[in-house]
């Protein structure tokens, strides 16, 4: 009889636990990271009687967490990958907006400038058209600067984002370490896993994975170790390491991520992948820095092309053309540990040879070597690095000052600051050099069929450029210069003297004369303006290439993000199908437990009736 009572009681207690757990599930139906729990029931040890084993009721073996380690791992990894692609794509879109807008884009602005130069070519004596050209030159500089400043802001924004990410990672790591301790204590105390704490820790691990790629290793005591990058321990049992942001080894404006360490912080930026941090670092190195450099390269190229041609021309007042644009030079950042007193002087010698890459110049074993900073590809150096014979490579000239120590190295960013230093140098519309400094004339007495096809300035610095020079043909294929010498004329080939080159068409006759001299009063000459406009076509191609590259990268990032988003959703759904709470299911188990509970209560009531019957039987 007592057995029935205790059996019924065991049922009552077990179903009460069941109802407890069901209501816990229902209560947490909306709790993020909550895993459905189920009560594991187990029959009690039966009692042996001569006629067999009689059951003695039910026990609650444990409360099980519905969870799948593999699915959880998938969720963590896909979350890491998704966050990386998402943060990359979001920033790529804003760069793309900057470069591809058809109304405010660089292409349109450069084309406006070219059009204004063409306007000067149409009416070289018109001050109005010259003024328009100067205004458009300023617009071009303004547009480049606006773009560069937006890129710089993005770079600053990434620094702030990295700070926030590091704060979030440190906070997650500490919380995980603290949960590790509680979980280990909980397990050792009861031998049962503290399910809700495990859920909390999983939630934190997922959050951590969205910030940075992690490798989670479960330990036998119920704790987890968390590693980031290439195995740097972030959480070990109950202790968490601390990350921090710091400037890179060249003290540039870009922040890196480092492990704090009493012996000195260790930079791990290049090791980190995955998560928002991975996306930020990848975006900065693969898109933002190249875009800044490319923009600088465009500025340097435009300035060089325009300046070279403009300086080869003559202004309305007859003076030689000056440089039209100023542009910022190369930035040199010495490594923080370099020997005192050393420095580099880096100048751009040919902007069209610039690659848009950054370089590292390093002194090892008594010699300097140059490599691209992103890929490490070594770049051949010509020259000796002295003022008389500077190192030359990729359009740069490098002069080393001071005495270097082994291991000294410098980061050279040839075009990163080009746009900041850009300005329009010419303010007087009369100073626009639309004309050529020289002009050619055929002799009045010429009897041959030769005519002037073109006259080009090949070296505007030649002091004798504008000196009057007469070419006289002494035969169809020979000529004298100013009456002296005898030179061979190849039909169609240019005749180059004094920094200009004259091309004739047709066949000259003996005695024919062609003279070249100063283009004084040549205010109606537009040949230099035309040359400037034509030369700028190359820069337009560069802008198109930059916009195209940015567009393609953005497009790739977008499709990568969309694909990863679908994968992430699927892995979340897969885990959810194991761990999520379904209210209908809970209602059913509630009914089930309730009915069982009522039945168990009936058992107790029947025990009482049985007991009463027994008492009644023995009373009278």
């Amino acid at each position: 009889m007592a057995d029935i009572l205790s059996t019924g009681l065991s049922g009552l207690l077990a179903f009460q636990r069941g109802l407890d757990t069901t209501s816990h599930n229902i209560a947490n139906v909306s709790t993020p990271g909550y895993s459905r729990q189920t009560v594991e029931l187990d029959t009690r040890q039966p009692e042996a009687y001569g006629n067999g084993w009689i059951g003695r009721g039910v026990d609650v073996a444990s409360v099980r967490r519905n969870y799948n380690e593999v699915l959880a791992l998938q969720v963590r990894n896909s979350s890491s990958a998704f966050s990386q692609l998402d943060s990359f794509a979001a920033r790529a879109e804003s760069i793309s907006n900057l470069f591809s807008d058809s109304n405010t884009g660089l292409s349109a602005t450069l084309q406006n400038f070219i059009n204004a130069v063409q306007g000067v070519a149409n009416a070289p004596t018109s001050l109005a058209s010259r003024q328009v050209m100067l205004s458009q030159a300023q617009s071009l500089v303004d547009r480049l600067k606006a773009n560069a400043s937006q890129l710089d802001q993005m770079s600053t924004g990434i620094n702030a984002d990295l700070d926030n990410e590091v704060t979030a990672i440190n906070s997650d790591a500490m919380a995980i370490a603290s949960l590790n301790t509680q979980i280990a204590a909980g397990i050792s105390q009861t031998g049962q896993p503290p399910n809700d704490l495990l859920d909390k820790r999983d939630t934190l691990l997922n959050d951590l994975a969205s910030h940075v790629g992690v490798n989670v290793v479960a330990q036998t005591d119920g704790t987890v170790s968390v590693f980031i990058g290439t195995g740097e321990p972030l959480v070990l049992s109950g202790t968490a390491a601390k990350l921090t942001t710091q400037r890179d080894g060249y003290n540039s404006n870009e922040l890196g991520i480092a492990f704090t360490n009493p012996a000195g912080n260790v930079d791990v930026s290049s090791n980190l992948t995955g998560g928002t941090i991975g996306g930020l670092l990848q975006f900065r190195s693969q898109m933002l820095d190249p875009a800044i450099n490319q923009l600088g390269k465009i500025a340097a190229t435009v300035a060089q092309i325009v300046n070279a041609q403009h300086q080869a021309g003559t202004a309305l007042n007859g003076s030689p053309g000056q440089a039209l644009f100023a542009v910022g030079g190369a930035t040199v950042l010495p490594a923080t540990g370099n020997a005192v007193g050393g420095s580099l002087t880096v100048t751009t010698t040919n902007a069209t040879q610039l690659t848009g890459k950054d370089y590292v110049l390093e002194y090892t074993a008594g010699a300097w070597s140059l490599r691209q900073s992103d890929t490490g590809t070594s770049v051949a150096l010509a020259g000796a690095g002295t003022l008389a014979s500077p190192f030359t490579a990729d359009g740069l000239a490098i002069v080393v000052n001071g005495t270097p120590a082994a291991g000294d190295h410098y980061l050279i960013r040839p075009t990163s600051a080009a746009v900041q230093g850009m300005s329009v140098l010419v303010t007087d519309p009369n100073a626009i050099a639309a004309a050529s400094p020289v002009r050619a004339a055929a002799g009045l007495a010429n009897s041959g069929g030769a005519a002037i096809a073109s006259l080009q300035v090949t070296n505007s610095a030649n002091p004798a450029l504008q000196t009057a020079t007469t070419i006289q043909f002494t035969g169809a294929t020979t000529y004298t210069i100013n009456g002296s010498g005898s030179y061979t004329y190849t039909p169609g080939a240019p005749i180059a003297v004094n920094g200009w080159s004259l091309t004739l068409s047709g066949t000259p006759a003996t005695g024919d004369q062609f003279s070249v001299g100063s283009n004084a009063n040549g205010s109606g000459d537009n040949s230099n303006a035309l040359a400037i406009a034509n030369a700028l076509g190359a820069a337009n191609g560069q802008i198109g290439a930059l916009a195209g590259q940015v567009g393609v990268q953005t497009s790739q990032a977008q499709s990568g993000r969309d694909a990863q988003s679908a994968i992430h959703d699927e892995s979340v759904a897969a885990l959810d199908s194991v761990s999520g709470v379904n209210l209908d299911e809970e209602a059913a188990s509630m009914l089930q437990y309730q009915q069982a509970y009522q039945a168990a209560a009936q058992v107790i009531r029947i025990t009482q009736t049985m007991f009463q019957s027994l008492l009644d039987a023995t009373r009278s």
Partner: protein
Amino acid sequence: MRISTSAFNAAAISDMEQAQTTLSKTQNQLATGKRVNSPADDPVAAVKIQEYERAKQESTQFGQNADAARNRLSLEAQALTDATNVMQQIRELTVSAANSATLTDVDRQSIAAQVDGLRQSMLDIANRKDSNGEYLFAGFSSQTQPFARNSSGSVQYAGDQGVRQLQISSSQTMADSDSGFGVFMNIQNGNGIFTVQPAPGNAGDVVVGTTAVLNQAAWVPGNYILKFSTPSNYTIVDASNAVVATGTYTAGSAISFNGVQFNLNGTPVANDSFAIAPAGKQDVFSMLDALSSALSTPVTTATQRAALASTIGMTLSQVDQTIDHLTTTSASVGTRLNVLDTIDGARSDADLQRATSLSRLQDVDYATAISNMNQQLVALQAAQASYARISQLSLFDYVS
């Protein structure tokens, strides 16, 4: 697969949000008429759009350049037509001065006065300006008056031989003018190949008549002298005094040597000579000066009359050369104007093509967009309705 209640709700809400986003995008496309509203919508298309927009601007500029060239060339064409008309009048005056044997000195002086007037018109034409105030025929020195009389009274060219080129397509430039040197100065004289001129001291009354080139290949350019050894015999020697041809002279008959031929008319005196030289270059003003001065000089003797007749004859062929030259230049200007029209046509074709490509890239196809919108509306409505119904289902409703 079992599905958790929160996942069901989250998925349903996420789906509806997605549907709303798509719908809003479609609505935005319909409202703006553009498929690509921000570069992020389609970065690759956005880059192409940008390039098309740039090309459009460039094409507009080429159009403006072509217009500028057309304006200048039209002005030049007009000037050349006017100059040709002036030359035609000069030709008529020259012919009338040559034809009438009865003209008195006074008559000739009146013709000379008319020539002077026309010469001034010619000078005015040569000094014409364009709408920017630049001289049309000054070359690069477009702000310097190209033609002016110097202290000795002859017209000098102060311009240069520069010809301004304008970019009228990405690969083509066009001269928007011709220099005054080319138009008014650099004109072949004589018949374009050679000239025959009487020596100043000739005593006879031989007049140089028509000249012709029979065989240009046989012509050896050089200076020759025809000398009458007797009134009926002549010798032609070259610059080194070597005899090239000899013959018997009959008045009015043709004399030919080295592939060229000319007529002499009248009676020579022994030792009269004529210079035969390759045609050089002469400017239109010095020719008119010479004509005017020849006509204004009184003529008394037969010798003077013969010299005048030779001068007038020579001037006539010179005038014809000039008219030819002006007409050729005019034709070159006309050709350039034609090319401009052709280029305009090609450019508008390209513009249209570009506009079509641009539209294909960035414009929305309304039929597709509206059909998309309808589908998306139906999908969203269905999602909302089904979610509202399904989310009401709960087993708890039946637990009493």
